[in-house]
């Protein structure tokens, strides 16, 4: 056994002991906590080719999901996009555990392919960028469904996907940094509000 595995075992054991001991004034040794997080991260990246294996969506639908997430929150000059932030993984994992979401999202992706086939004789992924944009511009706004009720399902589905994509993005490290949230840390004193700009 390498020195590494001994260290790992020891640290995880320390962690377990302090948890079961239940002494309320102890904190998890920072080193042990850091190590535990790192271990999780390492195990993830050790999976085949470091790639997430979808738990619910078949590969062509998962590819659609990736494309849509990327369109909803793209990379820009300030930060990465929803795909880099892990939104498709987040959505796939939760969908695999929730039958209602399976109907809403699985059915929604199917709807999108059928809609594109009818309109452009191609499934969504085989459409041109201009065609894709045309479809999304239709289903991204409720007012379009008011004029054309055949868009109802598409609009509802896209609103749900947009919400989940934002949830996935803005709970990621990239998304939280994009918003410039500062905190989640221990302070000796709370500094209060910096000088308020004029109203």
């Amino acid at each position, binding site marked *: 056994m390498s020195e590494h595995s001994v260290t790992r075992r020891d640290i995880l054991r320390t962690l377990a002991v302090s948890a079961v001991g239940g002494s*309320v004034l102890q904190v998890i040794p920072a080193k042990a906590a850091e190590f535990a997080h790192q271990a999780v991260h390492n195990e993830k990246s050790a999976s085949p080719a470091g790639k997430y294996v979808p738990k619910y969506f078949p590969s062509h639908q998962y590819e659609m999901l990736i494309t849509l997430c990327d369109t909803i929150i793209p990379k*820009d000059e300030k930060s990465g996009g929803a795909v880099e932030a*892990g939104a498709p993984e*987040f959505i796939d994992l939760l969908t695999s555990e929730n039958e209602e979401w399976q109907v809403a999202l699985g059915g929604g992706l199917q709807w999108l392919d059928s809609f594109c086939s009818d309109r452009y004789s191609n499934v969504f992924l085989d459409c041109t960028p201009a065609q894709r944009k045309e479809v999304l511009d239709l289903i*991204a706004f409720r007012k379009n469904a008011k004029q054309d009720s055949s868009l109802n399902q598409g609009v509802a589905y896209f609103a749900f996907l947009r919400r989940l994509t934002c949830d996935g993005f803005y709970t990621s490290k990239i998304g939280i940094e994009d918003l410039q949230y500062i905190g989640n840390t221990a302070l000796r004193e709370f500094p*209060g509000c910096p000088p308020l700009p004029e109203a």
Partner: protein
Amino acid sequence: MSQVIRSPKMYDVCVIGSGAGGGTAAKILTEGGLSVALLEAGPPVYPEKDFKMLMWPYELPHRGIGVGGRAAENFGEFLAPNGAWQIEGEPYTSAPGSNFQWFRSRIVGGRTNHWGRIALRFAPIDFKSATRDGLGDDWPISYDDLSPYYDKVESYIGVFGTHENVSSAPDGMFLPPPKPRCTDLIVKKACDKIGVICIPSRLAILTKSVNGRLPCHYCGQCGRGCVTASNFSSSQVMIPPAMKTGQLTMITGAMAREVLLGKDGKAEGVSYIDKATRTEKRVNARAVVLSASACESARLLLNSKSAQFPNGLANSSGAVGRYLTDSVGSDGWGIIPQLEKMPPHNHDGVGGMHMYIPWWKFDRKNDFPRGYHIEFGGGRDMPGVGEFNDLLHEEEGYGATLKKRARQTYGTGIGMAGRGEMIPNPDTYCEIDPNVVDKWGIPVLRFHFKWSEYEIRQAKDMQETFRAIIEAAGGEYKTKTPLNGERPFGIAEGGKIIHEVGTARMGADPKSSVLNGFCQAHDVKNVFVMDGAPLVTNPDKNPTLTIMALAWRASEYLLDEAKKGNL
């Protein structure tokens, strides 16, 4: 008979439930020299393992909303364990036409592990409000009776606040408050403009070390549970000193079924289901304290039937389960453009509001009785699931524009929540459902719930006030509430504010109340109820501090009576 496993040991007191009331009772009684068996329906809590302090959403695979997104309904998976609106195998029912939501916690410390830490004293007038407006009943005790116990509780658990001399919100033994957040400064200025009182809040969070507990480290996450016990929870602050006396026997996974009555007309113990083995067990005790939460304690009394008490133990008045109230709740929010210009900064603070609005219209005639307080928050909190739901609903679209708008609007919202007093009414109560038992074989509660015009008018006033404050702050009020329907003016469903109390109320008259002023049953001298059930009214103050002050006072009385041999 031989199926029941009997413990030969005789305890001085059996306390049922380890939350705010039960934890306080366990501490005072054991420190007073009594032996206590504490029954808790849930498991022990291990802060280092169970609390998610300082974790980021992306450190959880479900980003805080649990398997299949389902934990979102129970405030998310960041919250300290272990409460839910529905517990598997432990149902409750609502009568036709009623919709009551019952939040229960099954874990050592109960709901104090994750509660809002809002620690407000009831005011002198709150104990005598029937005398003032003719509605409901007065308490059998006064503010002066309880005030020394508020002092004791505050000094022991640690509550920050300031002396303000507002008659609806009595001052207490306070630690210094934290500095205001930007959102506080903006709301305070707006309130000053329109004549609304806005003062530092009173929360059970340490801004200085108390009894060896470390002061707050301002991560803003009290609801997740605090590994350093810098905020109050029964599991971390009441139970440890009780344990230290060597007089406390904690029995977890113990679902109390019945308080057992002896031939002498006194309680002689508690029968419970040991969840791990699914066997019936029994604790013998010279006195019994019910602290299982207002409705759970009522359920236990109603299920404890005997020849002497065919309608439930200590229920000769028929008042058990009656006089149920929750706080009136209505919420709203607005956007404050001024906040868009704030530079990024640490806004976390303590886990809860730094300032609040106590009831301020006590000096005038209103078109509803009693009053409400307003809690508010917002600003640059840690982003979480649902962060931009409102923006997405309003602006729709996608792509670079959406991303830019999210950046722009992040941290600019201020949310407000009114919490007001409900008047008990004859259509609101709980009783045993004759047709349903839970998986432990124990008959469950059926709820009846109805808001009256009083509460609906109060919710209307809340909405108008929220709008006035947001607009005075130069903001745009966003919430739209219906004028009628099931939730006029956004009034919350019964139970949703999780301040359900009153189901075994105290009173001077044994014909209309269950307990005397010391939380002692009129009918059975060695039975006490120490949780939200004894409350005669549910004023515009969150009940936890009062539950603890009542439990402290009742426990001292119990000690005294035990010494005199009166139990």
